[in-house]
């Protein structure tokens, strides 16, 4: 469960990049975070994960405040950043072992976990190479594998589908569904509206730092009383908010 309470943030004084954001993602829910470039998606995710401190408000992950009990809160989630270029000089296997050590993945399940995940994403044979030699998609995959190692309850992913081939993207979506079925939470940002429509239980649309819509796709259609496609609705919502 992720709870964002009255959060505001400005990089530059007087210009709010996030303006009084309130959001609650319940257990067992896949939440899609949509919005045009520069809307504030990455900024929000950085605050949820403790990379940025909110100027106002607080964020709770499984009831642990990221500002007040950072260590406890950080144990509750796995995070895939928007750039997959993580520690390019490490070999794949070294990177995964490093994360497993940090998150204290026990020795007996480690091997099985790493093998299972990397074989599923078809990067097992490349584990002995430096990540720098990986393609964009492969880098994305190893970061995702790293996150899933310790089975975090909350998944937070910033544009996880970019660069993935159709099969991997399909697999990831399947894993997200599976994860939620077990009562866990997935929060991810994306630009691919079809993914959001098919996969998410609810979506949030943010524009210029303000949340302009939260709810299911049907609710969105009802609200505007139009039987338009998600794309048309999205364009309409983000344009009206001038």
């Amino acid at each position, binding site marked *: 469960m992720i709870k964002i309470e009255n959060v505001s943030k400005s990089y530059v004084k007087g210009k709010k990049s996030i303006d009084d954001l309130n959001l609650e993602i319940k257990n067992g829910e896949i939440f899609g975070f949509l919005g045009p470039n520069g809307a504030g998606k990455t900024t929000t995710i950085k605050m949820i994960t403790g990379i940025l401190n909110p100027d106002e408000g607080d964020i709770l992950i499984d009831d642990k405040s990221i500002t007040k009990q950072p260590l406890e809160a950080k144990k509750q989630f796995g995070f895939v950043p928007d750039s997959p270029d993580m520690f390019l000089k490490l070999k794949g296997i*070294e990177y995964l072992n490093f994360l497993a050590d940090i*998150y204290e993945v026990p020795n007996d399940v480690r*091997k099985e976990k790493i093998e299972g995940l990397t074989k599923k994403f078809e990067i097992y044979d490349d584990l002995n190479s430096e990540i720098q030699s990986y393609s964009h998609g492969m880098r994305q995959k190893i970061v995702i594998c790293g996150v899933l190692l310790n089975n975090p309850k909350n998944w937070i992913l910033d544009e996880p589908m970019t660069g993935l081939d159709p099969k991997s993207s399909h697999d990831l979506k399947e894993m997200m569904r599976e994860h939620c079925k077990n009562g866990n939470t997935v929060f991810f940002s994306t630009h691919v509206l079809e993914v959001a429509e098919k996969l998410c239980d609810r979506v949030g649309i943010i524009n210029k730092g303000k949340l302009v819509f939260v709810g299911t796709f049907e609710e969105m259609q009802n609200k505007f009383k139009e039987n338009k496609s998600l794309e048309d609705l999205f364009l309409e919502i983000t344009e009206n908010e001038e």
Partner: protein
Amino acid sequence: MKSKVLVLSKVILKNSFQNMETAKDVNSNKKSKSMIILYIFIFLYLAGIVGVFSNSLVSELLKIHQEKMFLGIILLAIAGFVLIQSIFSAINLLYYSKDNEYILPLPLKPSQIVIAKTNVLLVTEYFIVAIIGLIPLTIYGILTYANILYYIEMLIVLLVFPIVPVLISSLLVLIVMSFAKFTKNRNRFQLIATILILVIVFVASFAMGNTDSSPEELVQMVMKANGMVELVKNAFPTLGMAIESLTNINIGIQLLNIMLLIATTAIIYALYVLVGQKLYLKGAVGNLSSGKKNKKKIDEKKAFKNSTIFKTYIGKEFKILLRNPIFFMQCVLPAIIFPILIIGMTILGINEENNGQTIDFASMFINKTSIYIGVGILCVIQFFLMFIYISATAISRDGQNAIFMKYIPVKYIKQIDYKVMPNIIMTSIMSIITVIIAEILIKVDILYLLLILITSIIMGVFQSYILIIVDLKKPKLEWNSEYAVVKQNMNLIWPAVIGLVSITLLIILGIVFGNILNSFIFTGIIAFVYLLVTIITRNYINNNINKLMEKIY
């Protein structure tokens, strides 16, 4: 064509310097003003030290009518510094910089790219020249009552003289790197190439500096007013012209020499561009920084071992340091190479002047536990510490990955402890090497030496913690070449500042207490003081950790 080169140079330069001050700062205006004042202060301090040093050296040389030798020393130092520095810069700028990905597809001639990149190299070197050239030469002018012509020519010389060393290094790089495409492991190749070029430069400079004159001739030279400068004049191709243009009594010859200097430089530049454009694209530009691809699968028995966070974190730091050739060369190598190289060269140099007779250093110090030995060794170690950048770049080296520190469930202060570890280890190794060399040379009392070693290691720990504060306060996280972190980074003035302040303090304390205190007690007190400041520094980090980490996002 000209304007294209100019635009390209500007873009590359801007790009590489963009992060000298962080655009990210929230209230940047107020902060950057105080930063500027601070930098001016630091610059004045460095300038002051260079100034005092030059002043006393010129005065001494004037007494024995060898003041021209000073120009020889300074210009030679500039040539040497620029030569070595631009080996590193040239490799990185020409072959490893990320902007190649954008520049190479543009419709530009190879010659234009080479010229633009060389211009950038030059501009970078002028910063060094400004510090080690401008002030000493001005002081020389003042002390020798030079006229206005001297100062004009001085500026021309300082502008023109560093060009040839840059071209030489850059050309060597172009030649060696054109073999790069034949290698598989390019990271290792770069490392070997750099060390190879360094060796070439050192051997060549030794060969050139070796005057094959008999002892009598040498004596004659030294006896003649300003004869000593003849010793170094041929050590670098354009050095003679530069010195003559500044010092010849005949204005005509002065002007002739300055013209000669400019003409020679221009010819070498033209030749360089001619050869350079042919070599540049032949070398494996662009795809050099590919990672190591290993066909072999992982060893299933060994691959999945777990270890403590302490070990795994420090292991990760070391792996990135060692596998990245630029970080390795700029952060790790100096710790080992500098003591050996500099101490070795000094001994060689002294012995050469003594016509090959080895000096018995050991006999120079009768008292094996003298305070001055301790102060001397500590100062030398502190001097070497100024070139170890591991801690000063610990955060910046991670670049965009630095945010990793913030979302993993490991306490910040612990991560800082892990991050300074490589610096502590490397400075300790450096201390040990230096102390061993000192023991061989002057056979210091072994217990005393041990105390000095411990003190120097504490010095290294202090350095490690204080410098990570510098990096935390102004991390350089958005870079497009590793080079930007280890070279075009204003933070790296701090190791020098801290080093020079420490050395100044050590010397003053040594002079003040030299005759009062027992050397063991004296060194013990120094060690204790360093320990105290180290603890205070770490406490400061611990108490302000959240604030210090705010710049990482």
